[in-house]
């Protein structure tokens, strides 16, 4: 089998994920921080569920046991200039 990419934004391969799980990283948070999965422009929307499934298979967990990292704003990239010119209601 050729190279299988699981995180398109950060170019992370299936092999890299498997290796990290073997090394003992058994938490999506740790995989994210070690490999950079989910930190690119899509912020994990394409890859995290796939990686969760790989982690479950490799580590012998039930997929429902895998905790997903928190999804945070923005839903899609927004230029800073748009934010800078937005009306800020005083808190």
């Amino acid at each position, binding site marked *: 089998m050729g190279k299988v990419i699981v995180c398109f934004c950060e170019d992370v391969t299936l092999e890299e994920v498997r290796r990290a799980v073997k090394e003992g990283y058994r*938490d999506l948070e740790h995989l994210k921080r*070690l490999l950079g999965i989910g930190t690119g*422009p899509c*912020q994990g929307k394409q890859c995290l569920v796939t990686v969760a499934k790989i982690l479950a298979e490799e580590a012998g967990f039930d997929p429902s046991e895998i905790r997903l990292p928190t999804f945070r704003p*923005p839903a899609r990239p927004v*230029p800073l*200039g748009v*934010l*800078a010119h937005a009306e800020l209601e005083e808190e």
Partner: protein
Amino acid sequence: MQSSRRSDYIIVGGGVVGLSIAYHLARLGASVIVVERRYVGSGSSTRNAANARAHFFNREASLLAWESLKRMYRLGRVLGYNTLFVRRGYLWLFYREEHLEGMRSYMKTWRELGIPEGRILDVDELARRYPFLNLKGIVGGYLADTNGRYHHDAVVRAYWKNCIKLGVQVLEYVEAEKITVKSGRAVGVETPVGLLEADKAIILAAGPWTRILAKTAGVDLPIEPIRKEAMVTEPLKITIRPLVINTKVNAYAQQTLRGEVLLSSATPLDVPTWSYQHTYQFPLRAAKAMVETIPALAAVNWLRQWAGHYATTPDHNPVLGYVDEVEGLAVASGFSGHGFMLAPAVGEYMALLLEKGYLHPVMAPFSPGRFREGRLIKEDLVIG
């Protein structure tokens, strides 16, 4: 894994501070268990801006920070794991002459303490060196280029791996519920997996939650969980080398090692709360401040925001050492927003105190007793 329930030391909190203390204790031959409620690094140690400086506005903090920064420089080599430290520098931008004056007087203090000096840059030099800055309203800057940034995840992993190598048990997803005190001595930590017993001491390195745990042993520590937010953009070619600090509104921007622009700003919503909930006001405020300072940022795409804590004390300095009220109970918390950079020195000094009974003079001013005794550490210059 076969794990023992008893060891010389139990450390509560698997952040960078708990791991650094564990590593140094293990190096001195002690047995250590670290209990972490979630995953290693899940507190502020994975939520910080990853900057390290020696220049603080009082002697005590500057000395501790300089000792730590020197250790940060060589940490990767010592731990055998690349911590990705780079001397990118700090650039403070001033909008008032009196702040520039204050900085000049503080430079004397740093010189006396042997801390590498930065220098004042006038507006012309700022324009030449940093063409991306909008200098409107700016009277000058201070560039300290021996300061820098690390990769927080790499540093946490470096300590964690070394802890494991030295036989430290790092238990993730185990919450410390209560400190057991017997005849005035802290002897154990109650957890859902049973009582963990400490023969020598229990160390609370649980970030702002340290206060809650200390209370279970009858100790009151003035540490507030102030929520602090940060945000990043898409990666760009590295242009903004130093950390650029807008002292007018207390905001900053810089590029991470992979080129993302990381921004933060003080906001009225930096309030005590246990919640990591982000606010919609924060990105607007940080973007407004830093697009004004660096106009070209307007075109850069924002990708993510998150929140963490500044475990804040009344004098904005950490709480380090044994508590007076209970024997065998020590704390390392209250870092008030600069604990990551202090972890290398704090871990070493705490281990010396615990295992050798030696209170390092650089750490001594930060004793937990200072709040009751009214010996707060004074901030000589407050900017922003």
